[in-house]
């Protein structure tokens, strides 16, 4: 039985190691590293945004901001972990549009998206692009709309899974056109892109982070961007609003959160560091590579973020309920 005791001791030591230190005083905040939870796997677009911001914030705050990937359940596992974390300013969450949609997509969420977090500020709006396989008939966005209206569910639309940004974009596209296409979910953007480039599926809508390389190499056809304005890195692509879909707007917006009850002084320090990161030339340059840019300084505030989150929750609720797709 000796070895079992050994294992128990090892486990106990492990358990102790993860209990956070408590009782740090506000004026010397931050005096130890800050954990930035990213509720998705390392290497993905959200992770990349987080790491760029974290690196810049570390320099401003004088303490390391460490990115921790807590993936799973469409981002709700990581968000749930932050919602329950000690509200001392040492745990923050960097989440995307999924924070707003999960409020409707998940009916048994163990936290409340609107009341269990303090908003720190918006970070960036990553545009999305509607792309098709290279052999797809239509050449322009207008032709695509006519084609989809004509072929209806013979058109195969791939997405990165239930609740993903590509899923949301597809739902919005269908409701804007008033028609249904055949939706094929994948586990993540990688395999979906693989099948699109290989010509197995017809259409996909995804973040510029994933699509710009493929578009520029001519491996896929690009039809339109999903934002209000054209995207600087893809200047030839029209917006959906330009080609006759008024009000069609979806971007993978990112925001930073802290657990409910985090003191205002800490939130202000975090927000100041976030604002500084969004003006950091290196962050701006890398964001440009991703086809995006930091939000304006006015939008990177807790108040604007809070209002925007509530508006987004309200915007997606009917779209999701109309599609009747839930993640639990």
């Amino acid at each position, binding site marked *: 039985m000796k070895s079992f005791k050994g294992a128990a001791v090892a486990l106990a030591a492990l358990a102790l190691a993860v209990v956070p230190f408590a009782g740090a005083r506000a004026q010397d905040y931050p005096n130890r590293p800050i954990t930035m939870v990213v509720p998705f*796997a390392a290497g993905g677009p959200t992770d990349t945004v987080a*790491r760029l911001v974290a690196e810049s914030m570390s320099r401003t705050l004088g303490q390391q901001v460490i990115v921790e990937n807590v993936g799973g359940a469409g981002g709700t596992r990581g968000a749930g972990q932050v919602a329950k974390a000690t509200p001392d300013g040492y745990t923050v969450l960097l989440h995307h549009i999924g924070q707003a949609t999960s409020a409707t997509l998940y009916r048994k969420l163990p936290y409340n998206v609107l009341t269990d977090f303090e908003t720190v500020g918006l970070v960036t709006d990553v545009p999305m692009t509607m792309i098709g396989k290279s052999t797809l008939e239509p050449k322009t966005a207008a032709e695509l709309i006519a084609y989809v209206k004509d072929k209806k569910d013979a058109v195969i639309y791939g997405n990165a899974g239930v609740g993903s940004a590509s899923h949301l974009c597809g739902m919005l596209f269908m409701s804007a056109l008033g028609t249904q296409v055949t939706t094929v979910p994948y586990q993540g953007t990688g395999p979906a892109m693989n099948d699109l480039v290989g010509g197995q599926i017809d259409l996909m809508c995804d973040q510029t982070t994933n699509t710009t390389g493929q578009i520029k190499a001519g491996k896929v056809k690009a039809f339109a961007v999903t934002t209000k304005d054209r995207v600087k890195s893809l200047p030839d692509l029209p917006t959906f609003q330009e080609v006759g879909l008024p009000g069609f707007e979806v971007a993978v917006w990112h925001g930073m959160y802290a657990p409910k009850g985090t003191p205002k002084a800490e939130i202000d320090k975090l927000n100041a560091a976030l604002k500084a990161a969004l003006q950091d030339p290196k962050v701006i340059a890398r964001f440009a590579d991703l086809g995006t840019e930091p939000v304006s300084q006015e939008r990177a505030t807790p108040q604007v973020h809070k209002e925007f989150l509530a508006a987004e929750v309200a915007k997606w609720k009917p779209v999701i309920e109309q599609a009747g797709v839930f993640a639990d």
Partner: protein
Amino acid sequence: MEIFDNLALGFSVAVTFQNIFYCFIGVLLGTLIGVLPGLGPVPTIAMLLPITFGLPPVSALIMLAGIYYGAQYGGSTTAILINLPGESSSVVTAIDGYQMARKGRAGAALATAAIGSFFAGSVATFLLAVFAPPLADLALKFGPPEYFALMVLGLVASVALAAGSVIKALAMVVLGILLGLSGQDVYTGTPRFTFDMLELADGIEFVALAMGVFGIGEIVRNLEDEHSRKVMVQKVKGLLLSKEDIRRIVGPILRGTFIGSFLGILPGGGAILSSFAAYSIEKKISRHPEEFGKGAIEAVAAPESANNAGAQTSFIPMLTLGIPSNPVMALMIGALIIQGIVPGPNVVNEQPSLFWGIIASMWIGNLMLVVLNLPLIGMWVRLLTVPYHILFPLIVGFCCIGVYSVNNNALDVFTMALFGVVGYVLVKLDCEPAPLLLGFIIGPMLEEYLRRAMLISRGDPTVFFTRPISATMLALAVLALAVVLLPSVRRRREEAFKE
């Protein structure tokens, strides 16, 4: 010849003091984390990403790539020595490698793994250099119907993994498939067997399951055996390979390299199947299949070569198409983006020194791994003579840390403990865990590809027979099944098992 110009460019980049240094750091770290049970390349690379901020892109990628294939190398060490496969690719190595270790032949098994991996790595790197673009196009021809057929073939072949009863092996495959079904349904989002726990929304973690049924189960089994309670092996026989050994591993290494190079290109499951496929084929064509499962050296050589070849060729879709084929490749793409390089099909043309530099560094890295690992074999083997009361608590402790680090999920540690008990029960019932793990991996993919193929064909099942690649593989699967079921063949199998 353009290829020589390209390779010359690659080596001119890779053979600088700085890049050789980062390559060395990468493979060394990779080997270390590979050896530590449960710690895999994904958390390691994620942890090191911030460090690569300050490096030039080529050096960063060379180091991260080194961690990946170095971990494949190191992972087989733990699988062989203590029956702990930290990654799906080393599950197969554990079957016969661990039996060799128990017979005191750990040195030979480790040497075989090292040599097989080096050969396979070198060949696959060469293939990557010469044929990357056409191979990537070939991978794109694999649509959902082809993947489905491939999974069927893999599942049929998995029965060959069993050394004992075919019925028990089938039962294990089915149990594995059932376990694999837990988690959120990809198509509808409906949670299955998750008991309303968000931690289970993505299903049972493979690493927790594998380390539980293999490693922890084996530790529990060892504890009840009074006689062998002190150390695993009293005396370690020769570390080096005999002439007979070398004769026996040449064929398996060549075949394993071929299989691994090809399957490694296929994103989404191809690489996972390669070591299983290599094992099954060796057992089918071996003149002494009865030794498989009891410490056959071929059964270490073939899957090890296959998984290392696959590790190199899995870079093909990432480097030539900008599409990640597994979580490690997704991290590499993240690293490229942080460096300001937009991944995609244009990287080869726009960043030739990056592309060819990484390829050249892989060859150098593989060479370093052999030079690094052969002398270490003696040390690893001595680990087996460490008394159990020191070794086992250490292993269990590392397993807990390793499993936790995969997803930062405490539930995974409890899952591992639970499956440790399951693993022990399976040993008592004389059921083998390898088919269970294969079922666990293949089952969900089988379902995913079947439903996807049906969705895309809009419900037309003939799609599996009218597409040539899919039809061929399904025909092969039927053939393989017929061979297993043919009475004369079966009798011979049964005779073989009695020995």
